[in-house]
C-alpha cells in the first residue's frame, strides 16, 4: 500500500467510548454503537490508510486516530430536484 506523505490534509477517526462505556439511558439502537470522533488535520508522519496516526488540526492541536480519508472534502449539495416545490408560488403571477 502506498504511503501518504507527512503534511497531507487528512481525516482520522477515533472511538471515544465503546458501547459498554457510553452514557446511561440511551435508546437501544444508539447504545450498541461506539461513540466516534472524526477530525481533519495535517498528517504528522508518513503513514498508510487504516493505521494509527497523529494529525495537527487547523488551530495546531494534536489528535490521534486511524487514518480514514486523504484530502477530505465536503460533498453536500442542493440534492436532486424535488418537483413538488417547483410550482409553489407561481400561480400568483400575472
Amino acid at each position, binding site marked *: 500500500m502506498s504511503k501518504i506523505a507527512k503534511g497531507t490534509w487528512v481525516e482520522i477517526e477515533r472511538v471515544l467510548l465503546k458501547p459498554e462505556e457510553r452514557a446511561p439511558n440511551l435508546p437501544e*439502537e444508539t447504545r450498541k454503537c461506539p*461513540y466516534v*470522533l472524526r477530525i*481533519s488535520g495535517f498528517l504528522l508522519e508518513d503513514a498508510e490508510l487504516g493505521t494509527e496516526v497523529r494529525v495537527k488540526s487547523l488551530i495546531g492541536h494534536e489528535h490521534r486516530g486511524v487514518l480514514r480519508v486523504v484530502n477530505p472534502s465536503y460533498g453536500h449539495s442542493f*440534492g436532486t430536484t424535488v418537483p413538488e*416545490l417547483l410550482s*409553489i408560488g407561481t400561480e400568483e403571477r400575472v
Partner: protein
Amino acid sequence: MSRDMSYAAVMARKNEIMKASMGMDYNDFIQSPIAFDYERMMHETGYGLEDIVRIQTETKVGQTPLFELKRLTEAVRAFAGPGKGATILVKDEAANASGSFKARRASISAFDARKKGYKGVAAATSGNYGAAVASQAAMRGLNCIILQEVFDSRGIGQPEIVEKSRACEAYGAEVQRLSVGPELFYQLLMTLENTGFFNASLYTPFGIKGVETLGVEIAEQVRQRYGKDPDAVVITHAGGGNLTGTARGLLAAGCDHTRIVACSVDLGGLHMASDTDFNRKSFTTGHTGFGVPFATWPDRVDVPRNAARSMRYMDEYQLVTQGEVFYVTELLTKLEGLERGPAGNTSLTAAVTLARQMDRDQVVVVQETEYTGAGKHHNRQLSFARENGIEVRVGDPVDNVPGKAIVIPQRLEQVRGKVQDMDKLRMSYLKNAVKAHPVDQWSEGDVAFLAADLKKDVSWIKTAVKELDK
C-alpha cells in the same frame, strides 16, 4: 498521575471544569436546587445594552434590516376573514456576520474570553451557533473548537450539519465531528479541561444578553415605521435563548403589551438520542425535540443554571409541520425574492397563521432569518428525506407524520399550525421541579422563583402543585 477520563468521572468534574472555563462561579447565585438569583446573574455579566451594541458593532453584528413582506401579507389577506390579515414583517438576521442571529449570541462570549485572557473558545453545537462562534473568534484573534453531532452509525451526516462543519472550518475552527449521542457534553468537558479554553456555551448570561439587542432593534424599527409597538413577535424556539433574549430586549425597550409567540416544528414521536431517528428528521433545530424539554426544564444544559428561560416570557406556543415550513420557505423565495434557511422560516410559518387571525392594522414580526445554501436548502432536506425512506407528497398538512411522511400543502390557506397548551407545559415544568427538590422542602423563595419562571403568580403555583398530587 493521569486523570480518570471515564464518562462518569468526567461528568463528576463538571462544576470545577465549568468554573475554570468561564471565570464565573454559579454558586454565587444559586439559592436552592430550584431557585437562583436570575436577574442578579444577568446583571453581573458587567455588560449593559450600550456596551453590547458597541461590542457587536466592532464584529459586524446587529442593525439588520426589517422588511415588510407585502406580497405574502396580500396572499394571507386573500383568504383571511373581513378586516383580518396583519402585516407580516421579517428581521433579516441573515445579514449578521456568519449569516444568522447566533452572531449576537456568540459576540459577547468571544469579547469576554479575549478580555479575560483565554487562548481560545469552545462550544458544543450542531447549529448556526458554531459558525457564529468561529466567526466571532476569528475577528477577536482567538482559537476556536466546535464540537458537533454530525453522523449516524452508517457514517451518514445530516446535510445541514455537514454544511455547519464546512462553515466552521472555513472560519478557521477545529471541528470535532461526532456520532449520535448526548456524550457531546462529555467530549466538551474533556476538551475544556485539556485546552483551558473558554466555554462559549449557548446558555450563559453572555449568550442571552447578546440577543437583547435584537428585541430592542425590533421595537425601534417598528415604532419608527408604524408609529406603534409590534402587536406580536414570533420566535423560533429550541433551547430558549432566542426567545428569552428577544423578549428581554423588547421589555427593556418598553414593549409591555407585545405578544411573545414561540414556534417549533412538531417532531413528536422522534427520539433525539436515537441513532436511527437522527437522519429521519428534516429539521436539525427549532423543533419540539428541543423546544418542549427546554421549556419544561431549562437547567438541562452545559452550565449549572441556564440563562435562557423561555417560559418566563412566552405568551403562547405554536407548532407547525415540516411540510408547512417547506411550503412557506418556497413561497418566501417566489413571492418576496428572499432565499432563506429553515430557522426563521419556522416562525414565518406560524406568522402566516397568526396574521390570518389578527386585524389588518396590526403588525406581526418574524424576528430572524438565516442563510441557506448547499445542505441547508429545503430541496436538499426533502431529497434527503426521500433517500431515507420518508414519503414526500403534496396534500393536506394534517396528514404529516414526523419521520414517516412530509406533506406539502397545496395552498397557503392549508397552513394552519396548531397551538400547544401552555398550562400543560407549566405542569410538566412543575413535575420536573418536584423531581429536582421535593415539595415539602420548597421555601417561599422557591415558590416565588417558580411563579416568575412560569409567568404566573404564587397562588397559581400553590394550586397547581396540589393538582400534581391527584
